[in-house]
């Protein structure tokens, strides 16, 4: 019985929408724009968030960065406190390796930008990373060709290099890069490995555009005292050792290496990847709020539009309601009939909004070369808002229609 009632109500609602196409289209436009605005912002925020989280994940959750500058966001960054700090040194890595028990791996990295040349091909400002042996244990990267450095190659400063996929493509084209000799700022190096293509990283840390060379070779090319060298010591915690425990130990060992007095402030920073996530969380919250407010107002306006059109619809069909009631239609049937119409209107508006969002994500993907996708959660959210608007804006007109007196309704001139 209920099923039949529901089906009949839906049929009536559908006929009403189809017979007033232009009016229906105009009234659902508000909902369409609202759903499009809200879901598009949520989709972009979610996609950015997942891309950034993916990039951070690739840096390693259990890795601590020992650096001169602490990672911090916001306007009150006390840079004058940090500017005179010493940068991490290679000998400190040796000391840490000797004394730390909580670390699984420790590695040193020195960075810089230099020109690469192979015959007539050249890449300017390529990122050069001078790394210590255990670097491969810290960074998650797979090799598509060749191998990583041996401990001997790293310590003796062999002129070998592991290059990123885009560097390999730019320098050697379709040729096999393994064993090829190329120049880094005029110094010869042999390719022994190629890192598997990683794709774009939101944090600009993709290995596709980097060249990793042994630290003792990098000393001849890069200046460790340069402001752009940004020396880092990476420390990766052993399994079942928390970052906090490892950081306590690192702090103690580093203080003794640098001979800091008991109450002296540390002159190094221990940075965790979670700090980046926290910084971005605040940003995403603001963007999400902005989308929520903009879309919320559009939806509110759309809701009023639907409520208005439903009141007009009830007024127009007062005679019909009277006839239906006099033929035995129950109040609940009239209520369902008008409520279905408003829900259906709103749902169509929402679906069109979601379709526009999906098309916008496709356009965004092709324009920005970034993974943007309409998630199931956002799809459910869009449909929920549509139905909710349909119920809230249609209930009062539907209920007032269901309460009409059949005799008076038939008599009305509407």
């Amino acid at each position, binding site marked *: 019985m209920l099923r039949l009632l529901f089906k009949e109500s839906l049929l009536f609602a559908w006929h009403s929408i189809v017979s007033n196409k232009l009016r229906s289209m105009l009234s659902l436009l508000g909902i369409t724009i609202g759903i499009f605005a809200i879901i598009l912002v949520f989709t972009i925020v979610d996609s950015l968030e997942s891309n950034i989280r993916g990039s951070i994940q690739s840096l390693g959750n259990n890795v601590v960065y020992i650096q001169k500058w602490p990672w911090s966001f916001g306007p009150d960054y006390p840079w004058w406190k940090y500017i005179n700090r010493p940068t991490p040194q290679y000998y400190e890595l040796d000391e840490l390796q000797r004394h730390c028990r909580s670390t699984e791996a420790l590695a040193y990295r020195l960075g810089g930008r230099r020109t690469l040349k192979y015959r007539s091909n050249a890449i300017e400002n390529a990122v050069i990373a001078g790394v210590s042996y255990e670097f491969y244990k810290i960074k998650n990267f797979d090799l598509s060709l060749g191998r990583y450095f041996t401990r001997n190659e790293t310590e003796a400063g062999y002129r070998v290099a592991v290059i990123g996929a885009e560097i390999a493509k730019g320098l050697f084209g379709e040729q096999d890069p393994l064993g090829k000799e190329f120049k880094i700022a005029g110094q010869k190096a042999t390719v022994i490995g190629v890192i598997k293509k990683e794709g774009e990283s939101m944090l600009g840390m993709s290995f596709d555009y980097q060249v990793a060379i042994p630290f003792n070779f990098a000393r001849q090319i890069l200046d460790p005292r340069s402001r752009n060298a940004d020396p880092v010591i990476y420390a990766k915690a052993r399994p079942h050792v928390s970052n906090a425990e490892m950081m306590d130990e690192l702090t103690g060992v580093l203080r003794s290496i640098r001979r800091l007095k008991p109450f002296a402030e540390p002159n190094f920073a221990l940075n965790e990847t979670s700090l980046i996530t926290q910084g971005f969380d605040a940003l995403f919250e603001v963007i999400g709020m902005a989308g929520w407010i903009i879309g919320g107002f559009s939806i509110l306006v759309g809701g009023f539009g639907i409520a208005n059109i439903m009141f007009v619809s009830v007024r127009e069909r007062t005679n019909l309601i009277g006839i239906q009631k006099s033929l035995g239609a129950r109040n609940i049937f009239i209520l369902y009939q008008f409520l279905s119409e408003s829900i259906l209107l709103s749902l169509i508006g929402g679906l069109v909004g979601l379709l526009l969002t999906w098309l916008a994500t496709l356009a965004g993907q092709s324009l920005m070369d970034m993974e943007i996708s309409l998630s199931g959660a956002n799809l459910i959210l869009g449909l929920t*808002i549509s139905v909710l608007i349909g119920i809230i804006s249609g209930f009062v007109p539907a209920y007032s229609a269901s309460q009409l007196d059949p005799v008076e309704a038939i008599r009305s001139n509407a």
Partner: protein
Amino acid sequence: MKRPGIITVLCVMGFLSIVVSFPRVFSPEVKKLGSFMPALFGLLVAANFMSYIGLWFMKRWGAELFCLAYFIKTLLDLVLRQFGFSFYLAQAFSLFCIVVILLHYRKLDRNL
């Protein structure tokens, strides 16, 4: 049946609370609780809205729907451990509404 003044006040306050809680349905905070949470919260807001309409027209189904929505919402808040200021405010307001509704329950119309 003439609507008592206290129910009119409750309904007006209820409609205002709907205006406030409606945007919360699709707020990032609710979305963080789970994919289906906005849908669930949305349904509860819609049920609450309909119950105030019912109470406005002095209908028994309005009172019953209000109590049902209150019960489900409280259960959900308890499960999700949402014990902020808004929880206690909503509890106080809802319990007050339930007391008023119970006092006038006999006056309410049984029909739709």
